[in-house]
């Protein structure tokens, strides 16, 4: 209260203590406050808020699209892995199939060769048997002839005239007996 300058500036005695209650300055304060608020509002609505909102939206969009892209890539990788597994399985199956086929072919070939060899062996054996039989028959025939001649000679030596045919029949019977 003792300060004359303050009192002069504030005018009304009531406002001496509190400049806040000096009503003569209210018009000034309110005017400039309204101007300030309007300016701030215009700056915000025209420039600041759309810009910051845009940046935030853009960032959210970028993050979302990145996530989507990552998801896509992951899906592709999974697909590629599955395709690789499939190809591997296919190759294995094919390899197995080829091996089986080859084995079967070899088996068949082998069997055919075996059959052929067996047939050859059988043919040879039959041939040999025929040859042996022929030799044996020949031998038997020779023995029969020798036996007949010998028998005839023995019969003649005993001075008995015998019918050749009878002698032969007797000899043949004996030979056949031996043969049997």
């Amino acid at each position, binding site marked *: *209260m*003792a*300060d004359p300058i*303050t009192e*002069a*500036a*504030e005018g009304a005695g009531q406002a*001496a*203590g*509190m*400049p*806040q*209650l*000096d009503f*003569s*300055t*209210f*018009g*000034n*304060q*309110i*005017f*400039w*406050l*309204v*101007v*300030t*608020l309007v*300016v*701030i*509002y215009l*700056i*915000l*609505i025209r*420039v*600041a*808020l759309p*810009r*910051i*909102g*845009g*940046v*935030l939206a*853009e*960032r959210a969009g*970028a993050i979302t699209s990145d996530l989507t892209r990552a998801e896509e890539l992951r899906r592709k990788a999974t697909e590629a892995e599955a395709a690789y597994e499939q190809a591997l399985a296919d190759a294995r199956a094919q390899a197995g199939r080829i091996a089986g086929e080859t084995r079967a072919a070899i088996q068949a070939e082998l069997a055919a060769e075996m059959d052929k060899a067996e047939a050859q062996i059988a043919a040879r054996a039959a041939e040999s048997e025929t040859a042996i039989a022929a030799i044996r028959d020949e031998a038997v025939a020779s023995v029969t002839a020798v036996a007949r001649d010998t028998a005839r000679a023995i019969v003649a030596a005993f001075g008995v005239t015998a019918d050749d045919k009878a002698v032969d029949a007797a000899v043949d019977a004996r030979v056949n007996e031996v043969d049997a």
Partner: protein
Amino acid sequence: MADATGGPSGLQIHPMDQFVVKPLFGGDTVSFYTITNVTLWMALAILAMSLLLVWGTRQRAVVPGRVQSMAELVYGFTYSMVEDVAGKDGVRFFPYIMTIFMFILFANVLGLIPMSFATTSHIAVTAVLALAVFLGVTVLGFVLNGAKFLNLFWVHSAPLVLRPILAVIELISYFVRPVSHSIRLAGNIMAGHAVLKVFAGFAGVLGLGSILPIAAISTIYALEVLVAVIQAYVFTILTCVYLSDALHPGH
């Protein structure tokens, strides 16, 4: 709140002098258009706000720098506050709420600069802000809800006997809103600045002993920074609450 705590040494402390509205370019009369310290510090608030929200975001970087991060933080903070308190349909009033928040925040913080002028310490300023909110919200409530807006005062969840009494209480509390809304802000800022000034006055005369008031000033200053931000927040969130009442008047 006397301006002098006069002592034998002639101790003169004028804690309220800092709030005097003065013309900047001479003259004694303060007409409504006179360029005063009010004009200066409000303009500086606009400038500081533009520095943060316009200059800081000029690169529109997807990966933000420091200032842009702060601008985005303020934007996101205010936006989610409006959305949480006033609801999804309150979001269209976000620019108005943001205007109020930015003005009070920067006015409060700039007022803490030594030798500055705190525009929000004046009841004229905060009363205009609070009245604008009060009138805007009331008009909005009636325009959007018609007579149903009066449900705000008629508490349907209370017993019928109590409703008239509650209506009177609700009505009084509704009309007290702009008063408390404005005095809370102006009072907090004014009291803090006055206390700082008182301690500064002590520091000026105590000589070597002034270390004590200086320590006190440092502590109170930290508190005042907190108060500056919190009061801006409180004013804004109360605005959102009132807006929410206008949008959804049923209790």
